[in-house]
Each structure stands twice: as structure tokens, then as C-alpha cells.
């Protein structure tokens, strides 16, 4: 076998395997995108939620937090924060608003972003929408995220 396994065969496995599995990935991607409406909570994806997502991005929240487990691991998971905060957007807004400007001695603290009320509402609605996404096995495992 060692003499018969040629470079040409190795090359064919590379091209054949690469192209084949790339096509498989595309096929699965199409299927995934088509079936997303079942889980993606898009019925609640309002203009306000979209504005909240922009705020989320513009302040690089992902640089400390995780959202559905992706992001940085410095601050709590926010994919279920709406549930954790007793399904209250007011509690979320209150928390964000109350962050001290100069932090807390020796502790990690979220910066004070000085959001307007409208912005706070959009951000809270975005987090509520994220919480409404149906993840497999209802991830995260428990309310602590």
C-alpha cells in the first residue's frame, strides 16, 4: 500500500474531500437558514430591538459579556438575563443606569454609558428578544448562565 499510495491520490482526496464537504456545508447552511423562523424569535424582532442590537455593538458589550455563550468571559452571560432579572426590562435598565462612573474599588464593574431612556429601552428590548430565542436543550443549563 505504501508504494501504491501516491501523491496524486493524496491530492485527489484533498480536492475531492474539500469540495464535497464545502458543498455539504452550503447545503446544511441553506437548510438551517430556512428552518430558523422556528427558533429565532423573529416575530419579536422589531425596529426597537434592531436599534438595541446596534447599541449593543456600538458599545462593544461582547468585549466583556457572552451572549448565548459567545463573547468574552469577563462578565455574566446575557442570553438569559431577562429571565434572571425576573422578566423585567425595568430591572435591566435600572442595573445599567446605576453603574458608578469610576467603578468599584477592586471589583469588576460595568462602565457608565450615560444612555438616554430611549436607548435603555431599546437595549433592554434587545436582551428580551435574545432571551426569547429557542436554543437547543434550552441552553444555558441554568438561570445563572
Amino acid at each position, binding site marked *: 500500500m505504501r508504494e501504491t*499510495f501516491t*501523491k496524486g491520490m*493524496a*491530492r485527489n*482526496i*484533498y480536492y475531492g*474531500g*474539500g469540495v464535497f*464537504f*464545502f458543498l*455539504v*456545508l452550503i447545503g446544511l447552511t441553506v437548510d*438551517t*437558514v430556512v428552518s*430558523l423562523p422556528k*427558533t*429565532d*424569535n423573529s416575530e419579536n*424582532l422589531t425596529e426597537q*430591538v*434592531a436599534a438595541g*442590537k*446596534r447599541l*449593543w*455593538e*456600538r*458599545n*462593544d*458589550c*461582547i*468585549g466583556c459579556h457572552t451572549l448565548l*455563550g*459567545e*463573547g*468574552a*468571559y*469577563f*462578565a*455574566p*452571560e446575557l442570553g438569559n438575563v431577562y429571565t434572571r432579572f425576573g422578566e423585567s426590562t425595568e430591572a435591566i435598565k435600572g442595573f445599567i443606569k446605576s453603574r458608578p462612573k*469610576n*467603578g*468599584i*474599588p*477592586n*471589583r*469588576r*464593574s460595568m*462602565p457608565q*454609558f450615560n444612555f438616554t431612556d430611549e436607548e435603555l429601552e431599546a437595549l433592554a428590548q434587545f436582551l428580551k428578544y*435574545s432571551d426569547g*430565542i429557542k*436554543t*437547543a*436543550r434550552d*441552553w*444555558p*443549563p*441554568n438561570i*445563572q448562565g
Partner: protein
Amino acid sequence: MKYESQGVAKLYFIAAIGLFVGQILFGVIMGVQYISGDFLFPEIPFNVARMVHTNLLIVWLLFGFMGSAYYLVPEESERELFSPFLAKLMFWVFLVAGALTILGYLLVPYATLAEITMNDLLPTMGREFLEQPTITKIGIVIVALSFLFNIGMTILTGRKTVITLVLLTGLAGLAVFFLFSFYNPDNLILDKYFWWFVVHLWVEGVWELIMASLLAYVLIKVTGVDREVIEKWLYIIIAMALISGLVGTGHHFFWIGTPDYWQWLGSIFSALEPIPFFMMTLFAFNVVNKRRRDHPNKAAVLWALGTAVMAFLGAGVWGFLHTLAPVNYYTHGTQITAAHGHMAFYGAYVMVVLTMISYSMPIMRGHKASNERAQVFEMWSFWLMTVSMVFITLFLTGAGILQVYLQRYSEAPLGFMVTQDKLAIFYIMREVAGLVFLAGLIVYILSFFVKGKEVEVI
């Protein structure tokens, strides 16, 4: 140096090492923030330090890949670079764009940076690793395309080898998949899904092609083993990388609202992802064992063997550790991920670039290899950085296991911040290991300036 234009690589490598230093300094800052949460707050909040840390990594690795390509391609293609001028021009464009972006992160609040750079016209900012302002992203595309044009023209009009063709495929893939960074839909799942088309298909896809071809090139040079043998290995390694890695993207689609079948597909295919890295170790050991000559550049051989082993350890073993869906259910988004990320990036991509630098830099400076003393310094830096990275990984793994147990697995799960307080000892030890890494990096830089009896001049 066989071709004069290979020399442009030197610029790229110097910039890469400079940015590497910046990356590690910010890593050390974040390490302190993990211990004492208000360190440098509110001047440099954690998210800013992290952005600088990860973006510098990406930028310097790209400098490293480009430098490696500029060095390797003329020699393989047996002709001068298509346009050395374009290579130099793009170097400065990329360096200035990169520096301005990093300064932007540090000098103004991120939201202000988004406003100045008119993010609202085409919002792409604020997603992990893709934090660069849209205008920087456009700059990256321009630089990448010019680079591909330059390298492509050199390869296609010269001698074509398996190494250059694989490298070109990898680099083209890098440029193409980066285009997904411009797609940022409001639908969070779609956003996340296609975000992985940049991140996963880079580091667990096309970058593996780049890594394997760079490693194959250096191994041909330092061992003198028959090109036919090495090319066969190269093909089979990258074949396994794509066969496992493409559908292996599914291990990111377990818990983000995507269909359940990804738990099976992602688990099965990503369980195969260690195979290409395993084969890289087998390959590197095999050709070094069968070497036809003892190359005077022992440091380069050490880096080459080191990158194969550490990539297997970091990307292969530590990836497998948490890739199966039932395990990942508990470990997703914990310090386990951070542990894997650190060792995988270091082992696979940092070390392969340092391998290329180690091999080519002495040649560009007029010697076949650095003098003995300089090589001793370099090998010390290898061990300091590599061993400290193993410890960083082990401490983060320990932190991650404890975190998973207390916060996720336990009957009475603790809150995130309560858990974090209990991980303090690991974060302290990680920071110590991080400082040793920094010391190793300083020794590495010193190795370029150490004088001694020079080996043969070329």
C-alpha cells in the same frame, strides 16, 4: 537569499514582532484586571484591552503570513516578486491602518469611534474579533487583494509547486471568508451563524492550509527530505483539515438557536479535527528523523517541531476536550474556551510564524543561521514562552472546570461573579505564567541582537 525581492519580508516580520509585544502587554494588563477588577478603570476598560489584545494578534499574524508568503513565494516560484513596490506600499498602508485602529480603540470611547468612522452607514463593528471600524475592514480587503494579486502573479507566472498552490488557496480563502464580516443582519442567530464563516473557517479552515504549507516549506529547507514525500504529507494533512473542519463548523452551532442536528454533525466532525494536527506532528517528527543533513539553524528546527506538537496539543487535544455537544453544553462560554483559544493560537499560528521568521531572518541578514549564542537565546525564548503557555492553559483549564462545576453543573448553581471570586487563585497563577511569557518574548527579541561567532556567510 536567492532573490532580492524576498527581502521585503523583513519589514513585515519586524512589524509582526513589534505588534506581538503590544499584544502581550495588553494580555498582561487583562490578566491583572482578572485579579483586580478596577485596574486601569475607567481609562482602559476590559473590553478595550481585550479588543487590542485580540486585534493585535490577528494583525500581527496577518503580517507574519504576508511576510512568510513574500519570502517563500519568489524562492519556490524561481522568480522575483511580481511587484516589490506594491508589497512595500501595502506594508505601510496596513501598518498605518492597523496603528490608527488600535489608537482609536485606546484614545476614544468605542461608541465615539463608531460615530467618527460612520459605522451607521454599514454597521459591522462591535462583534467579537471583528471590532475594526468598517473603513478599516475595507482597508483590510484592499490590502489583502493587492497582496493576493502580487503573490498570485508571482506564483502563476513562475514555477508552480504544491507548497505555493496550497498557500495561495489558503490566502485566497482568507480573503474570501473575510467578506462575511460585512454581513451583519439584525437577526441575532443569522449574525452569529455567518460570523463563524469568518472566524471558524479562518482558524479551523484556511489558516490550517497556510500553516501546513509554511511548515512544509521550512521542513524541506532544514531537513533536505525529498519534496515528493513532503508534498504527499502536505496534501493528506490539509485534506483532513478540510474534511473535518468544514462541517466541523457545526460545533459552534449547538446552542445558538440553530437546528438540533448540528449537535450530531458538529460533534462527529469536530471530533475528527485533531487528526490533521496529529498528522502534522507525525509528519514533522518523521521528516526531521529522516533528515538528509543537519541544518546549522537548530532554532528553526526546534520551532518547526514545536509548532507541530503545540498545535496538536492546543488545537487538537484542548479542542477535543470540550467539542462534544454533551460536554459543550456545560463548558460553552467558560474559561475552558479561553484555555483552548490561548494554546491553539499560540501553538498553531504564533509558532508557525515564528518558525518562518526563525528560518528566514538570518538568511535575510546574510547568514545561513544565527550565531550559536543568538540561537541559544532563541531556544531559551522558545522554552520560556512555550512552557508558560502550557501553564496559562492549565490554569485557565482549572479555572474553567471549577467554574463549570460551581456555576453550571452543581445542584445549587452559584452566580457568575460569586463563581469568579472563587477562581481567583487560578487567575493569579495565570498572570504569573503570563509574566514569564513576557520575559520569554523579551529574550526572543534580544536574540536578534546577540553577537557571537557567525556561522557561514552566504
